[in-house]
């Protein structure tokens, strides 16, 4: 019935995840297309974080499959997903506060020095500093010293570090769980701008957010999660904010929406 679509970059079919009696994911489907910003919205407990944790290898779903470029993949750890080029900015900022910006950017994949010291395991700190500076500048995040401890930064700058880390290493997909939640208006806008820059580099972005104006400002498509499932995927250009919220809360069924509102 629908026109043929390009193979999604990242796809999930029928994901299930139970925590004891709580069913966080109840057969959730998911599709991310090339070069898009896909917003994922839903009420608290709708399963958004669980969904993206499954896509990022941070949890292993009880059932369902995940496809990357149309090929089935199984992630047993966050490292598996990272090896496939999927980078994640987690809801509760995953940074080491007392460590420097450069160290945080390279945590887990530090470059080694060459020669004897490298053989002994010494890290190439010069290279880390220089590359960190390059990444931060390419995203126009103005921080002078990459030696600064992350805890000395403002909330927006910290978020900038987390976003830069994922953007720097992602080859396939960047996932962001509420990256603007803890930020003020100005800093929130800066991070949105950052997300656009990442997308403009050609990396598709999955953005979880409760902030409807942000979502409508930046998203190409909106995935509405409800009760552990995908309720609908909508097109922000052809649907109102109130209709979107109605679907999200269950006040309106997706079938009641005009056809062009669905994406």
């Amino acid at each position: 019935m629908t026109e043929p679509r390009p193979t999604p970059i990242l796809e999930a079919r029928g994901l299930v995840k139970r925590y004891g009696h709580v069913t966080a994911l109840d057969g959730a489907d998911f599709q991310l297309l090339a070069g898009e910003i896909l917003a994922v919205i839903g009420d608290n407990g709708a399963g958004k974080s669980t969904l993206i944790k499954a896509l990022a290898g941070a949890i292993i779903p009880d059932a369902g499959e995940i496809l990357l470029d149309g090929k089935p993949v199984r992630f047993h750890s966050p490292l598996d997903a990272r090896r496939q080029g999927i980078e994640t900015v987690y809801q509760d900022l995953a940074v080491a506060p007392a460590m420097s910006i450069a160290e945080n950017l390279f945590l887990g994949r530090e470059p080694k020095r060459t020669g004897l010291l490298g053989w002994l395991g010494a890290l190439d700190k010069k290279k880390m500093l220089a590359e960190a500076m390059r990444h931060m500048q390419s995203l126009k995040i103005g921080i002078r010293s990459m030696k600064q401890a992350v805890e000395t930064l403002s909330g927006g700058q910290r978020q900038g570090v987390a976003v830069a880390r994922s953007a720097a290493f992602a080859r396939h997909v960047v996932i962001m769980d509420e990256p603007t939640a803890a930020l003020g208006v100005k800093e929130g806008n800066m991070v949105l701008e950052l997300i656009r820059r990442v997308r403009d580099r050609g990396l598709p972005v999955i953005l979880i957010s409760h902030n409807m104006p942000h979502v409508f400002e930046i998203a190409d498509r909106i995935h509405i999660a409800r009760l552990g499932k995908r309720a609908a995927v909508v097109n922000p250009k052809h649907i109102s904010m109130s209709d979107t919220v109605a679907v999200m809360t269950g006040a309106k069924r997706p079938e009641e929406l005009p056809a062009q509102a669905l994406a």
Partner: protein
Amino acid sequence: MLPDLATVPPTSIRGRLLAHLPPVATLGPLLALFLAGAFFTSQTDRFLSGSNFSLILQQVMVVGVVAIGQTLVILTAGIDLSCGMLMSIGSIVMTKLAVDSEMNPYLAILCGLLVSTAFGFLNGALITRVKLPAFIVTLGTLNIAFAITQIYSKSQTVSGLPEALEFFGRTFRVGQTAVTYGTVLMLIMYLVAWFVLRDTAPGRHVYALGNNAEATRLMGIDTARMLLVVYTLAGFVYGIAALLLVARTGVGDPQAGQTDNLDSITAVVLGGTSLFGGRGNILGTLLGALIVGVFRNGLTLMGVASVYQILITGILVILAVTTDQLSRRKG
């Protein structure tokens, strides 16, 4: 037109100068060490002498090595209450096997090291696999190791050690001061630990783990395995401390190691490492161990009874922890 994230003011000259000085964290202990030295020099003329410094160094080499293991553990935001007893059991195994069982002394040393290491592994396994708090696990192994030490040695001191077990207690002269080979070994261990913690990926991951364990795991680092390695390595380090202890005292003493739990924690905290994990410098621990050694030595020279020394170290550790806590709250 794009808004930049708020920029940080350019680094000042003072800032650049400060970056080349040792971190403030190590200046505090250095000052404390200096003040303690000045105080004891003013109280007793026997303090400031080459032979007394040799004595202090010999006393410090044991707790100094124990404190290396303790630093590793505390950097991960853990704690090891069993360290003194893991050293003690290692020293009894070495001496009993070498003397009473007439085992080849090198083999006996190896067995002692293995026993301490195995207990460290046990700590790590219980903490990472059964997910018990480090505090309770090491309190348990403290008692287990103590009891086994008493049972195995029948609470008897082992004397008449073969030469191999006394090597690290032997000395060579640097000017006025007689330095033991054990002290040299301790210094080498500190340098190695310093390099690994500061310059290698596993070392930096120890800090990251202590900073934010979940973030470190999400970055793809196997944090459970790292913790297991850290506790096991700490056990091995206590085994080396056992060898130095035996060499210094010339006997296997089942009552040894009782003060080293608190002393090592005191040394770590005085050295500026945070009990909350993820912050600190192993060379600070060496300074901390020297402070503890200077205190114990100076108080003895002043004729202060050992109960009061225990009282004072107790107060010292609480003061150090309080400073740590207060400075975190500010930051």
